[in-house]
């Protein structure tokens, strides 16, 4: 790879102070460090460092998203052809399904990355920062939480909104308090409800005669159980947001995140516990059919699983203390099921539950850290110190 290195070294002076394009330094740096981990050595503190860096961490999340992405791509095609021909089995016309899915999803992914990364590079340039890798994940999450038929200009608008208003105005990566990918979805949900809800958006170019209702919508309408079987929902063979339907694919990603230690097991586990607590509570006290479904149905319907594994675990917007993560996760699970079952305006509660708890995460942390502070003050007072 010497010729790449030589080429980079040759053009590098152009992007440094006094060069031709000093204003493109962040951009050059982003591409250079993409090709080569820099040769910087330790200058203060510990003389050696762990081999892990932000790029690798974020890459792990993207790798974890691949099963959901692949399944989602195929499912777009299958759901489309299935609506035209309800007799179609899942693996019939495999290549047609896949090709159709790719044609649908590729533009969404490209738009999300191009819009988001342009803004990120621009801000990094302006602030004279290095480009943070966080958007590589956000840019993949956004397409996966979109309905397959979403207009591309809406994706672009939502991505721009999420990056600028959700992240950059607060100071960029690490400073935002709302999950950018969910913010993009919430933006579309409230700004363009017709493209984000109803029975017509979850299957790409659905045949008019086909119902196309998602399990969540069916439950909302008062069904006893969704028309899709539990195992079909678990596998993900149902209409829905692109990457959210398959619990199996998402659990593969979850396993990868947990094995590599990149995702927080505390948050994932506690979201499921929270969902179970609320589901079981409804089973005990509820009166309508929706309250009576087994709690694990909530896991496989809609975006619960995807939210628990990929959205709630965003370290920046989640609670940061280990104890806080338990509270944060359980409340997300509880709120998601509560909103689903009780609130007629929103069939899917996961997005709102996570955004709500994003807002409350700093408060949760505040009380956890405050307990630590109080313990310290108390110890000090016993020893005869004055008031702080």
């Amino acid at each position: 790879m010497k010729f790449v290195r030589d080429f980079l070294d040759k053009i590098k002076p152009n992007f440094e102070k006094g060069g031709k394009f000093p204003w493109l330094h962040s951009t050059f740096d982003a591409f250079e460090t993409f090709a080569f981990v820099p040769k910087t050595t330790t200058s203060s503190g510990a003389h050696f460092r762990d081999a892990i860096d932000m790029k690798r961490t974020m890459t792990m999340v993207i790798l974890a998203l691949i099963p959901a992405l692949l399944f989602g791509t195929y499912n777009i095609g299958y759901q489309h052809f299935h609506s035209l021909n309800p007799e179609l089995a899942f693996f019939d016309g495999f290549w047609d399904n896949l090709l159709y899915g790719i044609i649908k999803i590729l533009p969404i992914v490209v738009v999300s990355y191009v819009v988001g990364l342009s803004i990120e590079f621009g801000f990094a340039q302006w602030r004279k920062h290095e480009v943070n890798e966080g958007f590589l994940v956000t840019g993949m999450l956004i397409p996966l939480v979109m309905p397959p038929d979403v207009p591309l200009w809406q994706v672009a608008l939502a991505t721009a909104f999420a990056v600028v208003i959700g992240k950059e105005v607060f100071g960029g990566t690490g400073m935002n308090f709302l999950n950018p990918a969910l913010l993009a979805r919430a933006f579309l949900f409230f700004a363009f409800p017709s493209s984000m809800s109803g029975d017509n958006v979850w299957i790409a170019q659905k045949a008019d005669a086909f119902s196309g209702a998602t399990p969540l919508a069916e439950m909302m309408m008062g069904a006893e159980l969704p028309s899709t079987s539990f195992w079909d929902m678990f596998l993900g063979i149902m209409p829905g947001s692109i990457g959210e339907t398959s619990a199996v694919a998402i659990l593969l990603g979850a396993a990868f995140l947990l094995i590599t230690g990149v995702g927080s097991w505390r948050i994932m586990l506690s979201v499921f516990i929270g969902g179970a607590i609320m589901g079981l509570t409804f089973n005990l006290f509820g009166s309508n059919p929706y309250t009576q479904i087994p709690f694990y149905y909530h896991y496989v319907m809609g975006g619960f699983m995807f939210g628990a594994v990929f959205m709630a675990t965003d370290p920046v917007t989640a609670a940061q203390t280990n104890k806080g993560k338990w509270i944060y996760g359980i409340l997300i699970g509880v709120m998601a099921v509560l909103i689903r079952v009780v609130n007629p305006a929103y069939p899917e509660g996961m997005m709102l539950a996570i955004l709500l708890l994003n807002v409350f995460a700093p408060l949760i942390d505040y009380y956890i850290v405050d307990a630590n502070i109080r313990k310290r003050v108390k110890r000090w007072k016993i020893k005869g110190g004055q008031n702080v």
Partner: protein
Amino acid sequence: MSDIIKIKRGFDIKISGKAIEKVSSPLVTSYALKPTDHIGITPKLMVKEGDRVKAGTPVFYSKQNEKILFTSPVSGTIESINRGEKRAIEEIVISADSVQEYEDFGTESLASMQREEVIEKLLKSGLWTLIRQRPYSTIPNPELQPKCIIISGFDSSPLAANYNFILKGKGAQIQLGVDVLKKLSSGKIHLNIRANETNADELLKLEGVQINRFEGPHPVGNVSVQISKLDPINKGDMVWYIDVQDLAIIGNLFVSGKVEKDRMVALVGPEVKNTQYFNIKIGACISSLVMDNVSKDNNLRYISGNVLTGKRIKENGYVGAYDNLVSVIKEGDYYQFLGWIAPGFKKFSLSRTFPTGFLNLLPSKFRKPIKIDTNMHGGKRALVLTGEYEKVLPLDIYPMQLIKACIIEDIDLMEQLGIYEVDAEDFALCEVIDVSKTDIQQIIRNGLELIRKEMGE
């Protein structure tokens, strides 16, 4: 025998090049005092180039407290006074005589001496500077009393010297050192040792100390970790601490009346050909230790101290005032093509995103020693990941919150989050595993210094 105090969080990084138990006494002709080894000291010189000094002759004093003297480890001639930025004094180099002369500090029996007399003797001989205090890790003000004194009897950092080995035969001097400490403070004197060391006889025989036995991974040997288990520091508290090897130097002063700053120093690290121990004095030049004894590669980093917290020195630099270790590792100024995605079978990582990360789940005795270099392995980024520092910080402290409080220089918040209970060294492992490549030790040190200056100490 007291119960064993167990530490769970932390990690023993096993690096190749541990010192074998062999000692030699090389002839070292150049020594230096480095004011920068001492936190919060502005040196005022008492000598000039060409002056003659004896072992124990004061070389400079502290502008902050004129009674605190820093004395020469050897007799000889002041060769040069090396200054750095803004003419700050970095090194006072002394070329040693072949026959040593000593200042005489008298051999009055310790038993008949008052606290003030003991302190006077320590200050004059310059050995007071071997004692440090928490918080801040500065040399303590002799007019104050600590709530307790900690003697650290082991070191848990990577490639640390084996204290059982370096203390052999020094038992009597150490006991005398302990007796000196008893004169200084009416508080408890804690001697902290490793629980599983069976032959720490020299230490187990000591009288007048409370022996505490610790077990667990690094940073179990750090003073902060030990204090937090024994007698946590509150605002306004002060604890003194001293390395057990330096206690022998103090003990010796009260027997012979001489300043003999003898210290056994280990030369370690993956780039050292023959690792071993050296009998030298504090401030010795390392060139005769490392000459022809390191790998051929010119691109090496010499560190006075351990690889987590030590200071970078030149190949003809000097051993720091509080160090008993010289580590040599490779510089890592190389590019790695797509290094962030490559499997990295040989890279050091605690994270399981590397295959080697899984090996680190094994107990340290089953792990193979690894080679390390100084590459950062990535660029500086925003603090994004959470819950990582906690895994290697065995203190009841919220590290991320404390680090951020230090960054924004919020003194009240730092106090509330327990800044007095920590030192920069406690965050060394956090710094090593940090994905954002933040220089955490420097941030904590800046926070501590900010408070120290605010308090006027």
